[in-house]
């Protein structure tokens, strides 16, 4: 049947709703996909199914009362959110933080980065069809990190650990021993993932060369975090605008080559190795002193505004706080990294197959709590 005959066969596009409840949309994301057979013609995203009006709440909470809400913005990397919010408020008040608190914050934030990347990798492998086995391996490692957090601040997922000007409790005795054991336990596990997944023929076939994100497009969509670095842009806030004690830590930034789904996955694995190095160095150089906060719960902050961005596992999390002198922030804008990372999904996905939408979505590692705030 040569080309001329196929032209007059009337084919119709096939609209599929990958609706808010779908096994691999990482939460409540609604994708309206127009298909021509298996090939994606057009894909529109609908978000807002988890919009909990965080910014409206922020205007009715004092600075300390809002800290538990930051845990629930990116509920997989709560420590990094706390860190982002608290450093933003400290920058607004230009408050000095005790040295030990800075080191504790770095250790805890990097451990949470590993936990978040583990989930990112586990769900990515699950989306490619390796049903539950890699995900449960990643969760088995993540449980070890959660045990450490359980001992440090008593909760598994939403820690509410950091305060403005320091942290809530000092590290419990013998915790550095547990962390060292975890580091020793985790390093060979990362090599296991390489053998199980990274160089697996089917995994490569499914993710190499899919959803290639060129460097200029990534910067134009203000993508950040592992997705940007996978496209070859060496940009990491911990190195560009070092906050806390990151300038004392020496770690290198893994950079991908051609920015496809496999590179984004590989960058996350390398970043976990770097985070282990950071935790090791920070643990070694942990100074003495009292990291807890003595200041009262209600701080009146002089009118002014400040914008602080920190390196979240998913990208640059920015807090733009405007204060009008009262104990309540006048305006608090949360710049979520996944919000911009998801914006380019329709662009990446045109022309790919149905199975590739899920692969690209998994490689971007988005999180609906952060997008919908």
């Amino acid at each position, binding site marked *: 049947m040569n080309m001329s005959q196929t032209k007059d066969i009337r084919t119709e596009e*096939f*609209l*599929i*709703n990958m609706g808010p409840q*779908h*096994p*691999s949309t990482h939460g409540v994301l609604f994708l309206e996909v127009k298909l021509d057979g*298996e090939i994606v013609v057009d894909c529109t995203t609908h978000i807002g199914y988890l919009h909990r009006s965080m910014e409206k709440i922020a205007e009715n909470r004092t600075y300390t009362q809002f800290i538990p809400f930051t845990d629930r913005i990116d509920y997989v990397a709560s420590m990094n959110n706390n860190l982002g919010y608290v450093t933003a408020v400290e920058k607004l008040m230009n408050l000095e933080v005790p040295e030990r608190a800075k080191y504790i914050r770095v250790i805890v934030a990097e451990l949470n980065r590993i936990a978040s990347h583990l989930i990112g990798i586990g769900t990515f*492998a*699950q*989306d*490619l*069809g*390796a*049903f*539950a*086995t890699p995900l*449960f*391996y990643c969760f*088995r490692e993540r449980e070890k990190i959660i045990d450490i957090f359980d001992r440090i601040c008593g909760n598994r997922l939403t820690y509410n650990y950091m305060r403005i000007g320091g942290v809530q409790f000092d590290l419990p005795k013998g915790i550095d021993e547990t962390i060292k054991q975890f580091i020793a336990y985790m390093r060979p596990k990362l090599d296991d993932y390489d053998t*199980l*997944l990274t160089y*697996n023929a*089917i*995994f490569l*076939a*499914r993710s190499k060369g899919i959803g290639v994100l060129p460097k200029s497009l990534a910067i134009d969509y203000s993508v950040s975090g592992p997705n940007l670095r996978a496209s070859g842009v060496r940009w990491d806030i911990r190195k560009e605008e070092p906050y806390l004690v990151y300038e004392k830590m020496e770690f290198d930034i893994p950079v991908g080559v051609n920015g496809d789904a496999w590179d984004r996955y590989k960058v996350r694995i390398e970043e976990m190795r770097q985070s282990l190095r950071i935790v090791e160095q920070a643990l070694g150089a942990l100074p003495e002193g009292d990291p807890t906060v003595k200041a009262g719960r209600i701080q009146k902050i002089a009118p002014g505004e400040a914008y602080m961005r920190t390196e979240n596992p998913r990208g640059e999390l920015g807090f733009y706080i405007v204060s009008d002198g009262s104990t309540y922030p006048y305006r608090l804008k949360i710049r979520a990294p996944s919000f911009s990372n998801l914006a380019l999904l329709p662009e990446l996905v045109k022309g790919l*197959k*149905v*199975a*590739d*939408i*899920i692969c690209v979505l998994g490689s971007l590692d988005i999180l609906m709590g952060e997008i919908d705030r």
Partner: protein
Amino acid sequence: MLTALTFIFMLTAAFAVLGFIAVSAMFLIWWERKVSAHIQSRFGPMRVGWHGVLQSIADAVKLLLKEDIRPARADKLIWWLAPFFAVVPSVMVFVAIPFGRTLVPRDLNIGILYIMAISSVCVIGVFMAGWGSNNKYSLLGGMRAGAQIISYELPLVLSIIAVVMRAGTPSMQKIVASQGSCWNIFHPDMMLVSVIYMISATAEVNRTPFDIPEAESELVAGFHTEYSGMKFAMFFVGEYTNLFIVAAIATTLFLGGWHGPILPPVVWFLIKTYALVFVWMWVRWTFPRVRVDQLMAFAWKVLTPAALVNLAIVGWLLLKR
């Protein structure tokens, strides 16, 4: 000549086979959940009977009680018939499978040909389920299933022809008898054939890495998205019976059926079959899923040519002998 005796024998054989299918399906479902659990370093069903042994029975009882929902604009007849087309062919195949020296329901002289003809009827069941449930996901799943099973039928049948040529007869008992001295898999020219058979059998039974039709992550639950209650259980039982059949055929053709040193033949046959089933379960819980076009390319560009070349080699070897 249908005497009363042969009729009674056939009746008992039928009931024995049906009983065996039900028990083996239940056992396989339970076994898969335990194997997958231990691969993922967890326990699997424990609370329901000793080590979850009664889990499949509980699932069956619960599925019996479920309300049977039919979508409003579903195609009634096709929707209602689909589960039967998924299960009945896989039950009919048991007629020709040689469990033991004399323990075969009916030793057809066209054994393997009959099995191939019947087992390709399952495709129609999957297709009808996809079309009947008037749901976009199942339609996509049904289309994919049709394309996949048909395109993997070719290398499957070619590899079986190679075995039949070597054994000289399509009857299953005689194929097993011909492997008395040395199992087929150890013949040099048969090794590639058995690998081709294993791969295309995985695709035939829709198991990862070829489980495109009911891919959890893309299509919500593939062709049986709209089925609930007993109809869904029929698909489930059909899938596991197919898995057992494919393993049984593999043992008959390549691993020497019921041949084995001391244990009685039936035990040997079951050990080999369940060992192969374990390999498939092991594969299912470790490999990611292949994309549809890669799957098609692999079938047409790699497996079929390899099967044809192998056929030529077997033919040439037979001529030379």
